[in-house]
C-alpha cells in the first residue's frame, strides 16, 4: 500500500473504531451506573453505536472534527503534507469524513477538507516512523478553556490547589455539552498557544496511565474522582460518570503568566497510531 492509501485507511479506522482503552472504560462505567438510569441507557447506546460503526466502517460520530496528524520526524520526506491532503480528500470522497472545513471569511465549504492549515500536521521529534491521528469534534472543542491565575472569581491561586479548581470549574461549565463522559487534557503553564497544544497532546495518552510526576499523578487521580462526584453524568443527564480520564502535564512559564489550559474531549476519543516501515 502506498503512503496515501495507508493514511486514508488510518483516517477510516480512526473515524470508525473507538480505541480499546476508551471502549473498556465505557464498559466499566456502565457497571457503575444504576441499571435503569438514563446514564446507563446513554452508555449502552454509545457502546451499541461503537459496535455498529466498527462493523460498518463508518464514522462513529458525524462530526469528524479537526484532523491533527503527528508525524515522526523520520517520515518528514515520506509522509508529506501533500500526501496527507490527498488522503484526506480521498477519505472525504468515500464518506469517511464529513465535508467539515469552512472558510472562516467567506463561509464557503472546502469540499475536500483541504485548505491552507487543514488538516493540521505536526512533525514531532522522537516520533520515529509513526503517524498518529487525532480527530476532535467541534462540540468538545467548544468546551475547552484557558484560565489565567490568579483567578479571583474561582479564588484560585498559582498552585496545584488553584489548578484543581480550574479543572473542576471547566467540568461544571462543560456540563453535558461536549458529549460527556469526556476526557480532559490539561496543561499547567506554557504560553497561551503551547498551553492548548500541550493540553490537546495529553489526549493521546492511554486512559490507564498516570503522569510520571507523582504530584501531577496524585492530582489526576483526585480531581478525576471529584469530577465524577459532580453528578453531571453521560450527556449531562445525571449519573456517576462525567469523565473517563484526566491527564495533566506541565510546561515552563514566564514569571508574569500562569495559565491552566483544559482541552475537553468527548467520549468519542478518536486517536490511532500506525507505523510506516522504511
Amino acid at each position: 500500500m502506498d503512503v496515501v492509501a495507508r493514511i486514508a485507511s488510518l483516517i477510516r479506522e480512526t473515524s470508525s473504531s473507538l480505541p480499546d482503552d476508551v471502549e473498556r472504560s465505557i464498559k466499566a462505567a456502565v457497571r457503575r451506573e444504576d441499571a435503569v438510569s438514563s446514564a446507563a441507557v446513554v452508555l449502552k447506546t454509545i457502546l451499541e453505536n461503537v459496535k455498529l460503526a466498527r462493523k460498518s466502517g463508518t464514522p462513529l460520530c458525524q462530526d469528524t472534527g479537526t484532523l491533527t496528524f503527528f508525524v515522526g520526524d523520520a517520515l518528514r520526506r515520506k509522509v508529506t503534507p501533500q500526501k496527507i491532503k490527498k488522503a484526506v480528500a480521498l477519505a472525504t470522497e468515500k464518506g469517511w469524513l464529513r465535508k467539515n472545513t469552512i472558510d472562516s471569511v467567506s463561509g464557503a465549504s472546502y469540499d475536500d477538507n483541504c485548505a491552507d492549515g487543514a488538516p493540521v500536521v505536526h512533525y514531532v521529534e522522537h516520533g520515529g516512523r509513526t503517524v498518529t491521528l487525532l480527530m476532535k469534534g467541534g462540540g468538545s472543542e467548544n468546551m475547552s478553556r484557558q484560565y489565567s491565575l490568579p483567578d479571583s472569581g474561582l479564588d484560585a491561586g498559582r498552585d496545584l490547589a488553584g489548578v484543581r479548581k480550574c479543572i473542576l470549574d471547566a467540568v461544571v461549565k462543560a456540563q453535558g455539552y461536549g458529549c460527556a463522559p469526556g476526557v480532559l487534557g490539561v496543561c499547567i503553564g506554557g504560553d497561551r498557544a503551547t498551553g492548548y497544544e500541550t493540553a490537546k497532546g495529553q489526549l493521546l495518552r492511554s486512559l490507564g496511565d498516570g503522569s510520571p510526576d507523582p504530584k501531577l499523578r496524585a492530582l489526576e487521580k483526585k480531581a478525576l474522582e471529584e469530577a465524577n462526584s459532580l453528578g453531571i453524568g453521560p450527556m449531562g443527564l445525571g449519573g456517576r460518570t462525567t469523565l473517563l480520564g484526566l491527564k495533566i502535564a506541565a510546561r515552563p512559564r514566564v514569571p508574569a503568566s500562569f495559565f491552566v489550559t483544559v482541552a475537553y474531549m468527548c467520549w468519542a476519543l478518536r486517536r490511532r497510531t500506525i507505523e510506516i516501515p522504511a
Partner: protein
Amino acid sequence: MIELKYPFDEKTIRSLRAGDAVSITGRIYTGRDKFHKYFADGGELPVDFRDGALYHCGPVIVEDNGGYKVVAAGPTTSVRENPYEPDFIAKSGVRLVIGKGGMDEATLEAMRKYGCVYVQAVGGAAALSAAAVKNVAGVSMLSEFGAAEAVWHFDVSGFCGVVAMDSHGGSLFSDVAKLSEKRFSEIVA
C-alpha cells in the same frame, strides 16, 4: 418507550414529561447554525415545520445512485441556537426539537407557551442515528448552506431519544446543572 408519529399533535406533545423515553417515526428536518441565522435574518422557511420536528444535525451524506445516503447523523450541540429558537418555535409551529445538551430558559418558556418538547439524542452516536434514517426524501438550501448545514428531509423509523425539556417547564438539564454547581461549591470550599 413512547411512540411518536409525524405529524405530532399538540395534545400528545403536551402529555410528554421530562425523562420520558421516545421513539420517533416519520418526517424530520435537519437545521443548525446557518439555518437558524438565516431564519433570524428574515429568510423564508424552506419547508413546513408545522406539527413537525427540527433536528440539530449536520450529517455525513454520500450521493448514491442519483439520491442520497446517510452515513452518520448524530445530534450537534443545541445551545448555539438559543438566541434563535424561541422565535423559531413561535413562528414555525414546530413540536419537537431534537439535539444534544439542552437549551436555555427562554427556549423552555417558548416550549411551554407553544407546545413543543426538546428530545435529547445521544451525542456522537451517529452510526446508530443514521441506521434510523430510512430514506432521504430531499434537501433544501444545499448550495446556500453546504452539506453539513443544509436542511435535509429525513424519513426516520424508531429514532430514539429522551424528552429532556417538556412543555410544562420541566428540564433534566437545569436539575443536573443546579446539582453539579452546588456540589462544586462544596468540593472547593
